[in-house]
């Protein structure tokens, strides 16, 4: 049975009707993954689903999980040599929620090492290749989670989003990527890169699938003090009020801009209320605030990798300094660079110069964002200013890779829900549009995305 183009919800409906069973579904995605993984490199670990019958909302369907989300008894590598053989003794809260509701794990997906990167190239296990064109990057860091969904190697997947890591690859592979409000999904078990910015997110073919899965994993978790309950009830139909900040759109390449503006005129025609403003005053500082905070948090988060309890086995006849330094040589260059800059930012004398200023910026960015967006249902801007680049290009030019985050870091700094969906096509690629709401307005953002999907019909590639 060919399930290409099927939504998760329609699959679940078919199972309920008895026309297919979970075993067939899992078999389809597993076989497809076996067949394609050599080329796409979406999975680090692929598991053959067993055929035990499971009940619950997910009816035994197997999903793809990013390899920085802890899965009990299943290797969780963060795409790093450092955790190459690490098998967590516990499940992340999001994973146990999926399991409790009848979900299975199809595999653990490739990613930028420790979620540091926007292209999917910084993996110790090789780059993920874009299913739309294998010579191009998928976007990152949840590269495998996006590629797996785009290439029909999984019905839906979990990723994580620290500065755009769910939305960037969703945009580059032409699928839907949702970053919930900060705290809306428990981070317990998500291997930390930058705690104050990140959240577990969902990548799927259709917004309705993403919304369905979001409701299954959302909610306050006693193991994560920063988690909270966001409103999950849906309001009846409404006429969305959308705000567009022109200076954000202007940061994009011309062809991206063109497709983006075209999507605006379409939703405008269909009754969306669209308002434009010229600029967001702190735009040029977004990346500075983001990278300062992210590197600082990363440098302390990653200090635990010392090879003593888990991680690489170290042979050392020297003392603990020698031992720990040897173990930590297993990090890749992107990770080392960010740890070192984090160390620098937190050093005596520089804390005030950089870290504190970044916090101040973050505060101001939050204030300005809330002031501007209040009164609207969502902000609408492109997800990525560029189209996917050729694999290898950014390695020579890290500045370019960092700059590509400019449109995605804002909701991480503000804690807002944000969603990327395909809103235009250029050659084999898609242009992703990004909806950003006020913190807690997750369902509203998902709802607007559903309406836009209906209007734009960018992907006429299958049943739905």
């Amino acid at each position, binding site marked *: 049975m060919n399930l290409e183009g099927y939504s998760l919800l329609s699959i679940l409906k078919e199972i309920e009707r008895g026309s297919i069973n979970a075993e067939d579904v899992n078999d389809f995605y597993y076989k497809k993954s076996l067949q394609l993984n050599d080329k796409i490199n979406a999975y680090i670990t692929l598991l053959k689903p067993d055929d035990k019958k499971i009940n619950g909302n997910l009816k035994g369907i197997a999903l793809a999980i990013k390899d920085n989300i802890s899965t009990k008894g299943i290797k969780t590598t963060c795409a790093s040599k450092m955790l190459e053989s690490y098998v967590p003794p516990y499940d992340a809260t999001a994973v146990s929620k999926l399991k409790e509701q009848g979900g299975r794990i199809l595999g653990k997906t490739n990613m930028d090492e420790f979620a540091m990167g926007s292209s999917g190239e910084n993996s110790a296990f090789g780059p993920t290749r874009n299913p739309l064109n294998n010579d191009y990057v998928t976007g990152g860091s949840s590269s495998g989670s996006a590629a797996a969904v785009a290439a029909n190697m999984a019905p839906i997947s979990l990723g994580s989003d620290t500065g755009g890591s769910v939305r960037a690859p969703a945009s580059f592979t032409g699928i839907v990527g949702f970053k919930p409000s900060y705290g809306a999904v428990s981070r317990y078990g998500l291997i930390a890169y930058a705690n104050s910015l990140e959240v577990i997110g969902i990548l799927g073919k259709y917004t309705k699938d993403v919304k369905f899965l979001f409701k299954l994993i959302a909610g306050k978790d006693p193991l994560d003090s920063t988690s909270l309950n966001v409103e999950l009830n849906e309001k009846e139909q409404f006429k969305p009020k959308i705000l567009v900040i022109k200076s954000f759109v202007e940061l994009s390449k011309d062809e991206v801009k063109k497709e983006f503006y075209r999507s605006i005129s379409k939703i405008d025609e269909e009754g969306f209320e669209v308002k434009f403003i010229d600029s967001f005053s702190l735009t040029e500082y977004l990346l500075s605030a983001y990278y*300062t905070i992210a*590197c600082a948090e990363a440098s302390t988060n990653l200090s635990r990798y*010392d090879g003593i*309890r888990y991680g690489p086995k170290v042979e050392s006849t020297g003392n603990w300094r020698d031992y720990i330094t040897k173990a930590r040589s297993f990090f890749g260059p992107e990770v*080392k660079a960010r740890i070192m800059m984090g160390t620098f930012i937190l050093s005596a004398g520089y804390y005030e110069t950089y870290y504190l200023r970044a916090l101040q910026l973050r505060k101001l960015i939050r204030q300005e964002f809330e002031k501007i967006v209040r009164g609207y249902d969502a902000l609408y801007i492109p997800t990525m200013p560029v189209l996917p680049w050729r694999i290898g290009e950014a390695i020579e030019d*890290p500045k370019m890779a*960092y700059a590509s985050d400019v449109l995605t870091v804002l909701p991480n700094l503000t804690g807002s829900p944000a969603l990327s969906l395909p809103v235009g096509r250029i050659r084999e690629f898609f242009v992703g549009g990004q909806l950003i709401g006020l913190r807690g307005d997750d369902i509203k953002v998902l709802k607007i995305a559903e309406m836009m999907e209906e209007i734009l019909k960018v992907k006429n590639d299958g049943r739905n």
Partner: protein
Amino acid sequence: MKYSINKLSRLSMLKIRKDEEKMISKKVSAIGELLEKLDSIEPPKEAFVLAPEGTHERDDIPSNFNSDEIIKIFNNVKDRYAKGPKTL
């Protein structure tokens, strides 16, 4: 901006291999450029903490994790101890 890759790698307990050196210093200086932009930001009058919202809810009631599951993943174990490096 005053930082030395040598000092930062030592403080971070990282060793930079010869073949990584060029790539890492490129990345470091790309991030460094982003940091430099902060110089034009007016610093806050007083230091402050941007703490997460949330409440503390855990009561003082023990519930034990199966410790064998953790010992199983340790790299080196001796009599249930994690075997670590020399400390002198």
